[in-house]
């Protein structure tokens, strides 16, 4: 099942399928290690369309809500 990053539950694990967005945003995310094919785990999400924190590789990254909306993730549900 493919959902966006904001829809993942804290603790849930998935794999990034696709990132929608401009070249600049994709490049920025990529250079931080957020790119299709990567395993990703949700750590937390803040209320009121707040930032989303994920664990990817060995690090945690916080991504703004709008950006997280555009990161599509495959999860098993």
């Amino acid at each position, binding site marked *: 099942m493919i959902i966006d990053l904001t829809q993942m539950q804290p603790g849930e694990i998935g794999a990034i399928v696709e990132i929608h967005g401009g070249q600049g945003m994709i490049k*920025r995310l990529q*250079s931080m290690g957020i790119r299709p094919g990567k395993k990703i785990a949700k750590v937390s999400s803040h209320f009121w369309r707040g930032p989303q924190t994920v664990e990817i590789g060995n*690090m945690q990254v916080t*991504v703004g809500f709008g950006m997280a909306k555009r990161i599509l993730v495959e999860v098993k549900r």
Partner: protein
Amino acid sequence: MKIEKILLAGNPNVGKSAIFSRLTGAKVMISNYPGTTVEFTQGNMKLGDENVMIIDVPGTYTLEPTCKAEDVACRMVKEGGLVINIIDATNLERNLYLTLELLEKDIPVIVALNMWDDTKHRGIHIDIKKLEEQLGVPVVSTCCLTGEGIKELINRLPEAKALKATVYSDGQKWERIGRIIEEVQRLTHRHHTLLEILEDLSIKPLTGLPIALGVIYCAFWIVRFIGENLIGYIFQPLFTRLWLPLMMKLSVLLREGTFLHHIVIGNLIDGKIDFGQSFGILTTGLFLPIAMILPYIFSFYLILGVLEDLGYLPRLAVLADNLMHHLGLHGYAIIPFILGLGCNVPGALATRVLEERREKFIAATLMAIAIPCMAQIAMIVGIVGQRGGKYVAIVFGTLFFLLIIKGLILNKILKGVSPEILVEIPPYRMPQATAVIKKLWMRLSGFLREALPFVLLGVFFVNILYALKVIDFFTYIFSPILTNLWGLPQEAIGALIVGFLRKDVAVGMLGLLNLTTKQLVIGSTILAVYFPCIATFVVLIRELGVKDMLKATLIMVVVALSVGTMLNLFLS
């Protein structure tokens, strides 16, 4: 090959500055959050008989910059030199992207696998030999906390190679990184440590927000506790018991009424020196920075240093993200604000971590208006605090209210939207006592070196102003604003003039004027908002450009006029 210049390049928060400090012995700011270094730092190292220049470059994820700090980094790399590419060994995959980019350039590269000690308890095994084969340049494991591997790194510098590799597309680079990782890295399972559990708790909103409130409350409580006690038990007694008798002798020697006496000792209050009121260079001029401000600077930077090294600040940034969006900023803009509480100058520099011009403008003006520096806070606590804690609360409450209102307004009227936060959250690391003390010492000596002369100059300036009657001229021009709008006596203009130089001295001057409590509250608030001190002003011009700074200045003047008037109307 002769090495002339060495660049330390790498992703943010991988320990470039720590290695820099190891190599050069120079003292630099090292903290556990991305974006500590926003400007390059230069140092020297002896390599054989040669003196080599070493440059600590701000962290960057790629050679295509997304903010000013990264832009600085990319320009440095373009200028050439030998590059020590510093890699966080616990994050090999992400770090290798920049490495591959560097290998495409015509510059010699050597790789330092830093934080090597961390890989062990994180269950990461890296085969350095294989990594070296894959990359084609030397790879050395280092640990800058212990200094392990630094010698080997220096010894192998001549082996650094410029590969000038074929330029690959992003996709190809990531494919190659994937293959490298498979070849050289092995992960073993391990259990969560206590620090990691704390990491999770402090970033999840339900537990993180109460923790943040607790941390902030405790931080301020400790800052105040240490500051007050240092003043009460050490600095004040020192001044009254040791310095006062000396100054009294000097006063007799110089004879009251002479010009020199006026400058050096100041006015005698009931025939005695009053360190708060005499306003001579050697009396108030020394007492103010050392006995009233330094203790608070000490306690503030002690606590800040611990929080920085622990890695707490980025988590606070994430928690504040929602609120900050309403002010036209994202959460990470809290870093310039927090640093600004210490001193507005590093705060203004830290706005470089922000991506866009609009964001930088908002962050810088908000900070200049609503974030008083520790020197000013200490003086407000010291002087307004004499009338009661309630009034100190009114001053800071007004400033906080201004921060929010001004942010809301700027966010509405400035074109554009606030960009979104995208930041790496570093793992918690136990702050090391030596590192914290070293950093504290750097900041304290920075204050003594840079602020103390300005305070003395400020006090000197006050005396000259009065002696030459320059003040009378300004009083004549500005008295309608002062008296009619703000309800302050004409003499308060002196404080406003000196405030351009040093805000702390200016607050001290308010203490001389026999103001009512209401006037004192209004005066201190206006001093905080009407204009940044000259040091901050100069940095802001450089960071924002003249045009934006003029806009910012206009906003400050308008805010000062209206806030002063409002307080005058509503306070009783």
